[in-house]
């Protein structure tokens, strides 16, 4: 009695022990990679390790582990017919992307903007087949985002489309279920503003900005804090605690925390959605001033904002990227309308316009006022002023009457 088992019994016990060890290691490795349900991963790890062999292991495989086939079914439905840009985008000139990434290292990327000669620049933020799955919900489905360097990129879509999820993943606050993210800059050079920024209420605006500066750009002096305060118009409130700030002031302070580190990329999630018209105007003006100085990714469902400040747009709906490219291209490819105000007889001009092949519809809105719907925006922009002149009319105003909403609805309908 007592002592270590010997003979065949010892070898049986060693074999059983080795089997338990191997099975548990395999399952724990599998647990790290696979998707689980009902309980967090750490709880499943405890069940595998602590519940008697093989009951814990079986429970995990049967109950906790989401089968590979089920994951594939959810993540990989057939792509929509127009999930990619409506036409292949022009490939950027210059050095080819690095083999292991979509974006070459920063030093190799020439600092060209989309504004340069209308050609797209290299993507400073890009994703490849990026997907995010929450339980049974596919929040993002193989999104290939490409934000050109220097662009103001509007990520638009209805509520729940996946915009915030996308920005959260790009910001490193959430992890993708699959796919890759490529940043052409150091992550700390990417500043992120959540939709409703909040700060410790017992810190002053100046302290919050100084903290942000110290964390992302400690080499910058205190002048950058003062400059950021000035930029967002909070100089007079600099030494007030943020707990007493209005929503608009918090939003501006949030933008200042992004600016203080002089970021290369600025990601703004619904920056104006919670603001009154005055606050919204201020934020849009601020974004407008930043355009060109830094790459901006702006997520919003307010399409008028995008139309005002963005030059590139990505339309996301139900987790899928429906369109990506210059906003002008998107408008040109969808039904467009223009409002025309002339001095003189607009009806004569209207009659002539109705005979043009590129004119879909002409509406006489009032004395001297027309609304022209066209299927070729670029031709309308070229020919309409000329035709007004040929009719001996004075052109008072000529504005696009098609907003992004029309284009957006056509894409997501």
């Amino acid at each position, binding site marked *: 009695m007592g002592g270590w088992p010997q003979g065949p019994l010892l070898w049986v016990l060693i074999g059983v022990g080795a089997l338990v060890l191997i099975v548990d290691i395999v399952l724990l490795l599998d647990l790290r990679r696979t998707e689980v349900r009902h309980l967090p991963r*750490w709880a499943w790890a405890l069940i595998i390790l602590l519940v008697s062999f093989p009951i814990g292991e079986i429970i995990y495989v049967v109950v906790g582990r989401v089968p590979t086939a089920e994951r594939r079914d959810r993540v990989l439905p057939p792509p929509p017919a127009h999930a990619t840009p409506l036409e292949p985008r022009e490939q950027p000139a210059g050095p080819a992307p690095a083999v292991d990434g979509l974006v070459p290292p920063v030093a190799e990327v020439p600092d060209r903007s989309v504004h340069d000669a209308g050609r797209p620049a290299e993507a400073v933020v890009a994703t490849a087949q990026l997907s995010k799955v929450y339980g049974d919900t596919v929040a993002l489905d193989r999104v290939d985002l490409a934000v050109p360097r220097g662009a103001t990129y509007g990520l638009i879509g209805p509520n729940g489309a996946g915009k915030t999820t996308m920005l*959260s993943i790009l*910001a*490193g*606050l*959430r*992890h993708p279920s699959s796919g890759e993210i490529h940043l052409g800059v150091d*992550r*700390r050079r*990417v*500043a*992120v503003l*959540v939709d*409703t*920024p*909040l*700060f*410790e209420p*017992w*810190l002053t605006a100046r*302290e919050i900005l*100084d*903290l*942000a500066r*110290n*964390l*992302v750009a400690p080499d910058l002096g205190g002048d950058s804090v003062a400059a950021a305060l000035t930029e967002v118009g909070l100089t007079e409130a600099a030494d007030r605690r943020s707990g007493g700030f209005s929503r608009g002031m918090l939003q501006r302070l*949030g933008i200042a*925390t992004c600016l203080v580190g002089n970021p290369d990329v600025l990601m703004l999630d619904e920056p104006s959605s919670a603001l009154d018209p005055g606050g919204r105007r201020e934020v849009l003006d601020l974004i407008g001033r930043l355009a060109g100085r830094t790459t901006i990714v702006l997520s919003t469902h307010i399409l008028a904002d995008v139309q005002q400040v963005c030059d590139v747009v990505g339309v996301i709906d139900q987790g899928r990227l429906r369109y990506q490219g210059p906003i002008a291209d998107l408008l040109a490819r969808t039904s467009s309308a223009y409002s025309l105000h002339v001095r003189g007889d607009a009806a004569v001009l209207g009659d002539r316009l109705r005979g043009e092949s590129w004119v879909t519809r002409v509406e006489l809105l009032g004395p001297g006022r027309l609304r022209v719907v066209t299927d070729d925006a670029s031709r309308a922009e070229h020919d309409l002023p000329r035709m007004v002149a040929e009719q001996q009319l004075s052109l008072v105003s000529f504005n696009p009457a098609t907003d992004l909403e029309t284009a957006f609805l056509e894409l997501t309908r």
Partner: protein
Amino acid sequence: MNLWRLELLRMVRTHRWLILVGVYLTFGVLGPVTGRYLGDIVSSFAGEITIEVPDPRPVDGILQFISNTTQIGLLAVVVVAASALTIDARVEVAAFLRTRVRHAGQLLWPRYAIVAMTAVLALLVGTGTAWALTGILLGPLPAGPMVLGTLFGALYLCFAVAVLAAAGALARGMLPAVLIGLGILLTLPLIGIIPTVQPWLPSHLVTAIVTLIDGAPATDLLRATAVTLAAIPALLATAAWQLDRREL
């Protein structure tokens, strides 16, 4: 402004340090006073009944202090620690900080250190007050066991705060973190009912002052000290790892 100053300001401007120091200071006063006058207090309420209360000893003053701080004092530490160490409790504030650091551990270390230091400071203030008042009201206490016992008690508080760091990483909100932390810290003494396990548990350090004053050698506390010293970094590493994995 760096993260250390941020945490110092959090402790000062939210007046959390006052809660901790106030609680320990209060019990530092009440312990010796209760120990000295317990007999008189009981007799005054006894009426016709005669109650024999043994003469108070100097150790009774510190025993009352330890007894009170083990319950209410620890609760105060747990609540204050949970309020500071639930980093993701407010998503917007967490997003501001987490998008500006390389890993969540950068946020965790200063928070842990400042809370633990404040808790230890409160313990030192409370113990010092109790020691001084006991000397005045009940008689002197030996310096060696007092100092060494306080250090062991401080180590236990560091452990308690580390438990809350881990609880704050597991649970997002403050209340769940408090419940998890209290659950762990209150379970340890229950496990200590098993005689062979008790010397290994961090909770064994709570009454170190009384143990040492009663004449037990400090070596009796070495096993609990070793476990506690190993548990603190393990808990903090777990907390940092979990925070990095968690999505906002």
